[in-house]
């Protein structure tokens, strides 16, 4: 009798073996190439300066990549452009999503459709359009580094639409937007103050999610940056891949580590703020 009762309980706790099998297959699909890349990146030999022997495995490929000024330059440029993209996206999409939810909820499907455009229009089409408009006069922005980066930021803001808008919109759905806005207004706050003091702080987790997703997209973006001829991280990795064997693998792992560090930061910061931004009335 006891065994009959405990068996289903055990199964419920650990789940079905088929579910585990599918889960492990899924994990393998992602983890095996990653392990293979790490293993390959460690194959670069390190020459001992004293004995002159070649040592394998080694971190020689990583050392070479990290010492390359183009790598650091590309990484910093991508990071700078990512931060500007995040700032522009937030300033554009938070007030938009807020206004749509509060004042024109019927326009929400239209705005959602617009934010999904990057999934419909491939980056290569987008970049050709941008080059066609911004390379020749009178809008020859692509003739200067500043202009090129500005156009690149614009393109990345568009690419981040689906992620950033959804993150912000989901965040807005978790708070009683109308009542909080009205409460702040009744206490004397104007629209900018309502957004800055009440809405933004209560969306911290959602904004971080959107920001780090945008960071991940911009850090790894290749097509648009390459066609515009900017020296960002994506084109650098591609160039490295054409000339070297182990270094591109090391570069990929480094970029992967940066992206994961960013994702990890979302979890940590999100957890740290969960208590403070818990909806009022929650137990």
């Amino acid at each position, binding site marked *: 009798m006891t065994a009959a009762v405990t068996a289903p309980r055990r199964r419920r706790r650990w789940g079905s073996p088929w579910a585990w099998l599918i889960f492990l297959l899924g994990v393998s699909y992602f983890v095996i190439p990653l392990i293979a890349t790490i293993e390959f990146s460690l194959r670069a030999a390190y020459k001992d300066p004293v004995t002159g022997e070649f040592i394998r495995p080694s971190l020689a490929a990583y050392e070479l990549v990290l010492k390359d000024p183009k790598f650091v330059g590309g990484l910093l440029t991508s990071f700078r452009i990512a931060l500007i993209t995040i700032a522009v996206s937030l300033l554009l999409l938070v007030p938009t999503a807020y206004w749509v939810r509060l004042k024109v909820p019927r326009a929400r499907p239209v705005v959602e459709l617009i934010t999904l455009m990057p999934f419909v229009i491939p980056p290569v089409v987008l970049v050709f359009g941008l080059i066609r408009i911004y390379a020749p006069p009178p809008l020859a922005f692509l003739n200067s580094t500043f202009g090129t980066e500005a156009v690149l930021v614009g393109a990345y803001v568009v690419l981040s639409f689906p992620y950033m808008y959804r993150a912000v919109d989901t965040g807005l759905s978790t*708070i*009683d937007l109308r*009542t*909080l806005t*009205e*409460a*702040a*207004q*009744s*206490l*004397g*706050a*104007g629209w900018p*103050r309502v957004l800055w*003091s*009440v809405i933004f*702080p*209560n969306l*911290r987790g959602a904004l971080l999610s959107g920001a780090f997703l945008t960071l991940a997209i911009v850090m790894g973006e290749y097509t648009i940056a390459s066609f515009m001829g900017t020296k960002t991280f994506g084109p650098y990795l591609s160039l490295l891949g054409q000339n070297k064997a182990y270094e591109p693998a090391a570069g990929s792992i480094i970029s992967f580590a940066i992206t994961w560090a960013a994702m990890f930061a979302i979890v940590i910061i999100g957890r740290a703020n969960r*208590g*403070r*931004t*818990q*909806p*009022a*009335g*929650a137990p």
Partner: protein
Amino acid sequence: MFLSLSGIRKQFGDHVAVHSFDLDAAEGEFVSFLGPSGCGKTTTLRMIAGFELPDAGSIRIAGEEIGRVPANRRNVGMVFQSYALFPNMSVADNIAFGLKMRKVPAAERKARVAELLELIHLPQSGGKYPYELSGGMQQRVALARALAIRPRVLLLDEPLSALDAKIRLSLRQEIRAIQRQLGITTVYVTHDQEEALSLSDRIVVMSQGRIEQTGTPSEIYNAPATEFVARFVGTLNLLPATVTDAASGRVRIAGRELRAASAVEAPSGSSATVALRPEAIVIGDGGSEANRLDGSVSDVTFLGSIVRIRVRVEGVDAVVALDTFNNPHEAPPRIGDHLRLAFPPEALLVLPHAPDAGPVAGDESLAPA
């Protein structure tokens, strides 16, 4: 008058939420808007707050027209049903928010927050966050936040609806005590008649965007102006009647001639509705002047100190409820017992017949037999 609403009208699409609404409230007065869901009470409150703009009419506070003034410049405090405390701010920061908007110096702000925390009996809770407080505590903080800015008018939109019965009762008394202490003009929206009756200096009973009656709690309860008010406020027995002599206030129910204390407005021979409060009816013959009805007991409900007895009146398809005090030495009547009910002429209210009046809470004539 301190708060004056004149000819206020609001329409959403084809639906008129508030028809021509007039109200004059004196400074320090506690006025409640009472009515069922969708009667326009919250819309009217939101127009005073500035969250909705009236399509017509004027809103004045201390003589100043504020109908088109943005909500953030009206200096009107608002307490919401869902508390609406800012989750990212501590209790003290919530209370200080309105003062910061007014650029009140930090020292003065701190003193005012401490004063208000004392007022709401939460002096040690300034550093806590809203989620660390119970519902009742959160609503007290919301009240303190609204009072911190020294508003000209305090608006409360069903502030007790989300709380359990015991806290609702204690907080209700606390709100009234604070309002009296500060002498602040207050408009309170509720669908709970008991809340409105116990709190208010005056009640505005609303239905379908219109004012049904404005009066003191006693006037509203004892002399309802319309059948709707009679049905909505308190428990009421409604019986169909025919006016036999309007001038002397005589009506006929189930072949019995009954007498009201004063003349009836409806003409002789017309149909009317007779309203009786349960507490006005006694079992027995009553005094020599009493009106009498006969019937059989259809239900007996024990409510603690009160026993509610429902009696099916002979000759009428209606049930009358009456309340008696619980007497442990005397058994209540049993179902099927024949009873004679008596009530004085003053307790008999003859209301103009309103055929479209729907069933509402407290309408005992609609109770199942």
